[in-house]
């Protein structure tokens, strides 16, 4: 498929999903009197779009940095780190956390950045197993930390558990959503500028240096921006696996591996996947809606296994 066709198809799909998502909810199908339900649902739709976009482009960027199609901020513990950062803030300063709009995003970013830095130190190099083992360890550690804090703090317990299950979209309001959305757009825009450098990095660090790429600088920027995207996504939806893995895979299948195409198409597909999953979870079982993360996992896991079996890189 040509890149233009893929992007046009992606945009049409996304627009259709937005209309559908705005029309579906626990009150049934429709926009309510004078569009009242539309206003109620739009923050959630906005949050799902931004979080999906961040997950998609973050996954593509992390795969580019680690030269590894199995890298995904969900598997490598970066989302876990973001949630752990939020848990630490809620556990240590429960009052301060909600006083300023930036407190929770800042905590998430600090957690995501710390995990990313550890991942680079522990899992760097070309070895897939080393990267995934380091990610597995970091994921387990941050999950354990979040669990400990959640079980000790009565007030935040439900909130953190919901975050770990990727079930935060339901509480999206414009007040909570605007800053992570802006951070997502910032991270995504800056990540797009790294496209050619990520292409160069795919030839290995030595070769990339020979081609005139500032390897250290590119890696630092990409890791920082991926952490920012992961933090923003975590603030909006909580932890969601598979989208960071699936969106870049699908994008590469559609338009080939050039990062100038893969990064934006992953963002588009990530937004469509998360919004689609959330809408499906709300629409099919309106009385007991499933979280976006649950739907993503139920549909994403088999799809990923099927994709991993074929040669498609």
């Amino acid at each position: 498929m040509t890149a233009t066709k893929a992007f046009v198809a992606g945009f049409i799909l996304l627009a259709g999903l937005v209309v559908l998502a705005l029309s579906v909810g626990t009150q049934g199908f429709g926009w309510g009197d004078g569009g009242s339900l539309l206003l109620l649902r739009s923050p959630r739709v906005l949050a799902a779009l931004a979080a999906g976009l961040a997950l998609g482009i973050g996954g593509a960027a992390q795969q580019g940095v680690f030269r590894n199609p199995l890298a995904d901020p969900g598997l490598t513990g970066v989302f876990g780190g973001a949630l752990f950062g939020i848990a630490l803030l809620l556990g240590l300063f429960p009052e301060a956390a909600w006083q300023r709009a930036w407190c929770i995003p800042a905590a998430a970013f600090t957690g995501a950045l710390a995990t990313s830095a550890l991942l680079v130190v522990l899992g760097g190099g070309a070895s897939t197993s080393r990267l995934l083992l380091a990610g597995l360890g970091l994921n387990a550690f941050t999950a354990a930390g979040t669990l400990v804090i959640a079980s000790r703090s009565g007030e935040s317990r439900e909130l953190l558990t919901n975050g770990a299950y990727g079930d935060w979209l339901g509480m999206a309001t414009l007040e909570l959503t605007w800053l992570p959305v802006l951070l997502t757009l910032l991270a995504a825009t800056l990540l797009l500028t790294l496209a050619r450098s990520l292409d160069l990095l795919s030839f290995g660090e030595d070769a990339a240096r020979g081609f005139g790429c500032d390897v250290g600088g590119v890696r630092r920027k990409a890791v920082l921006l991926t952490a920012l995207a992961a933090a923003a996504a975590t603030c909006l939806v909580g932890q969601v696996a598979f989208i960071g893995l699936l969106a870049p895979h699908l994008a590469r299948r559609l338009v080939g591996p050039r990062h100038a195409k893969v990064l934006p198409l992953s963002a588009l597909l990530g937004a469509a996947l998360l919004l689609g999953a959330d809408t499906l979870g709300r629409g099919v079982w309106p009385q007991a809606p499933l979280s976006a993360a649950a739907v993503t996992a139920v549909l994403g896991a088999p799809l990923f296994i099927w994709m991993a079996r074929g040669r498609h890189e």
Partner: protein
Amino acid sequence: MSDILIQALGLGVELSGRRVIDGVSLTAFSGQVVAVVGPNGAGKTTLLRALAGLVASSGELSVTKERTYCAQKPSCAWNYRVSDLGDIVGEPSGFANWLAKLGLAELGERRLTEISGGEQKCAHLAMALAVLPEPFGNLFLLDEPAASLDLTKQAAVHQAIRDCAQAGAACVIATHDLSFARRCDQVIVLSEGRLAAAGQPGATLTREVIAAIWGEPALTEA
């Protein structure tokens, strides 16, 4: 005398506590092709990487111009089209020219997994050469650039190296191909990380040196 592009004096490299390169000196002038030969494990790759500044080394190393290093086994994480590679290094026309010179012009639309290992190597070499469109005054460090290539492509790679040198570059080539080494301006013979012989091919690749470094049976091959 032409310009000295790289000079190493008593170069040493330690990898995981083992001294892999020990007291190697080398000088390459503009216009020269220098062959680095030696048995497997002699330290050819490490020497090239040290000259390229990719591993820490002791001793003196002075490099006056840009260095381009081309690895022995280039790899790529993603399955690009060959024609993408020129865009990726930002020199599409230079890349296409080198690709044509190496006899691979027809590969453009194929993906990296659809071409042979030797062709992948040539494509990487074309990328490395394209980055520095004017070879004059530059230093090329190529690790076995012609290994696993058929005779036609070997000849094309060797010609490309000579073209670069003629345009004023200095080329340091790690190789197992002694007949190519004999046609170079200088030969560095490495053995267990040390300099076993260095100088003009006629003076270095003698029967005695070959027998001492590679063993008697190698004489029939060399």
